[in-house]
């Protein structure tokens, strides 16, 4: 073989490989634009039977300005704390349920500002049972590559939470009330802050809902919605729902700063006394009964002056395996005593009483003098 032939052979190979290599280099370039992803819906709830194939559409749109390459990956989530926040985790040993999931487009081209639909399918095996918690993460291809010299790469993604229940013999939907309490047994003015702590001692996630009925002397005077945000209690976890009854005159209202609730150093909302009545929340997307109840109440401040002992009756329900409502009930009492107002009133009464007493004493003194003077004459 001549040197010439070898040379031309190498050139031919180089020419054949060069475009592919160049393309690979382009595909591997690290994106530089900001990442803006919008997903819907959230969270996704799937119900399946063993052996089923279930699917859901997840919509995604990127609005970074350019066309981007996006990719889908799978993680799992669990409850972090008791406030409904998820904790993301990578696949662990034994997490075979990751293998059940497929996406119709694991990577896809996403033009700017165009909604794309990604179908997530789950082939549920016959051995599957109870609850599975997936986090479908959308991210940009190339973001995990090393950034330029002296720079830190920032990769981003958005996770869509998917909760799947598999109806299997032994499935148990069960909630236990751990605590129903009010922050202070005695408050000067409303709001009264209620806490409902529920434990899911079953193996299927459950979404409870209900109300706290507030009454005084047998008459209902208030209604508070529990879990108006439609949060879920994951299996083998507990969750705290907080709600407040504030419809009274006057009441402590959250202090706003730049349109946001002002928070103190401990993370608690800062409140100030408001000489009015709370307005119904017109932004509520789903009727909960609370704002409808408020809308029917008198706007007369005097009839909404809160004083004395109140009874709060909690009634929440959740669906059992057959869709029937299972009730959970509890009752507590609390007091509203506007003690500062009462002290001022007492002080005024004392002053008036002292004034009357002094006047009477003085009048009696004058009467004595007059009698004495009259006798002398």
């Amino acid at each position: 073989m001549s040197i010439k032939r070898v040379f031309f052979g190498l050139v031919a190979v180089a020419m054949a490989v060069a475009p592919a290599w160049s393309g690979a280099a382009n595909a591997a370039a690290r994106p530089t634009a900001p990442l803006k992803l919008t997903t819907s819906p959230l969270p996704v709830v799937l119900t399946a039977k063993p052996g089923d194939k279930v699917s859901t559409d997840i919509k995604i749109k990127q609005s970074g300005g350019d066309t981007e390459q996006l990719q889908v990956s799978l993680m799992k989530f669990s409850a972090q704390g008791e406030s409904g926040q998820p904790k993301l985790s990578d696949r662990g040993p034994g997490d075979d349920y990751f293998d059940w999931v497929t996406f119709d487009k694991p990577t896809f081209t996403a033009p700017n500002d165009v909604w794309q639909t990604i179908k997530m399918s789950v082939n549920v095996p016959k051995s599957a049972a109870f609850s599975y918690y997936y986090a479908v993460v959308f991210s940009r291809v190339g973001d995990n590559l090393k950034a330029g010299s002296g720079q830190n790469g920032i990769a981003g993604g958005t996770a869509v939470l998917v909760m799947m229940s598999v109806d299997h013999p032994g499935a148990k939907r069960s909630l236990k009330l751990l605590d129903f309490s009010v922050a202070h047994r005695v408050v000067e003015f409303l709001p009264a802050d209620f806490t409902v702590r529920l434990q899911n001692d079953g193996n299927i996630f459950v979404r409870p809902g209900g109300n706290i009925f507030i009454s005084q002397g047998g008459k209902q005077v208030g209604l508070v919605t529990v879990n108006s945000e439609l949060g879920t209690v994951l299996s083998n976890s507990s969750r705290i729902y907080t709600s407040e009854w504030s419809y009274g005159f006057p009441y402590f209202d959250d202090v706003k700063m730049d349109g946001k609730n002002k928070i103190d150093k401990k993370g608690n909302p800062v409140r100030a006394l408001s000489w009015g009545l709370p307005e119904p929340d017109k932004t509520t997307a789903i009727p909960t009964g609370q704002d409808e109840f408020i809308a029917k109440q008198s706007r007369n401040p005097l009839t909404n002056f809160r004083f004395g002992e109140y009874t709060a009756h909690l009634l929440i329900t959740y669906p059992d395996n057959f869709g029937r409502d299972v009730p959970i009930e509890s009752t507590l009492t609390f007091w509203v005593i506007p003690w500062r107002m009462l002290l001022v009133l007492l002080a005024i009464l004392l002053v008036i009483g002292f004034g009357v007493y002094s006047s009477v004493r003085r009048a009696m003194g004058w009467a004595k003098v007059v009698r004495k003077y009259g006798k002398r004459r």
Partner: protein
Amino acid sequence: MRQGRWLGLRVGLVVATLLTVWLPSGAFALGHLELSMVRLNRMVQSTDTGGTVCFTPDTAGSTSSVVVTFPSTFSLTTGTGNVAVDTTADPDAVGSGNLYWPSGANALTNVQAGDANNGAHTITFAVSAAMTLTVGTLYCFNFNPTDTSVLNTGSTVGDSLEGSVATNLDSQNIAFSVLDGTSNWDQVTVSAVVPPIFQFTLGAASDTVPSSGNLNYQQVNESTGVSVTVHTNAKQGWVAWAKSSNQGLQSTAIGGPTGLIGSVPWAASGGNGVPTLLAPGSASNYGLAVGVNVSGTSTCTMAVAPEYNVSAHDGSPLGTSKYAGAATANFQQIGGCSGGTSNGDSLLLKERVTITSTTPAATDYTDTLTVVGAGNF
């Protein structure tokens, strides 16, 4: 004599004819309004309604009443003052709504509550102080029965049901339309679905620490920072996590542990993480600091995870604090917003680095941070 009698008769006839033609009709009957209309609030059959009356007089002068005659198919309840009036052109102040008047309309300010008369099918609105009307001016007022059945459209459906509007000076016949009640044609039910969405924006794809120049061993070096902004209509709020690919700044050129400016350790306190005080000059360390960057018009409450909440830890603003939290291999929550919707709330994520005078020199120290956001469940 006979001829003279005939002549007189002829002259009389001619004069009578001329008088009939030439005398103004107003001398015997009301003039015609230039324009008149009655817009009913509801047009469907057998429905109680109020409405708006508008008219433009054609004759100068004053009127002491406005009489609206409704079709004989309408039913009214006879009474005195049982039809309230108002002269608010645009009650909801948005330039639309059921009481919105035609452009250029003037309030008939002296109009009084109307008296309905079922026998005559009229509502008579007195006009106090015999208001002087200007020819060519459009006058309007709204009327609303004070009770049910005072004015009902009746069961007859039709497009040309005759009625009229009259002042003391002018009148005009008008046509009323009454629509079939089975299809409720005067109302359109509008329904729409707003899906839950989650929009996640990462402000940059890379970040440089320090923002300019080289790392200085005499100070805490800080990056410009990357914003993590979220818009979501989900009422549960959202959360963001971050993880580090190198758990420090790694130099490939140096390689191995020698080329790593390692992350500060995860420091736990009271069940939560706490940030670590950085020591420039005496330790090579890398970490993350998070602050709240922007508060949008949201209803959720922002919070930074304790591990990265450097401002809360030493009371200094994010830009002057000397603390940082661990950059971990697994996703750690860096912050979020809970208990409401989010309209552009954001976190600012900064990398902080300290080196010593013996930290090996290299130009390729880098890390890749992955930030993921999701709505709560």
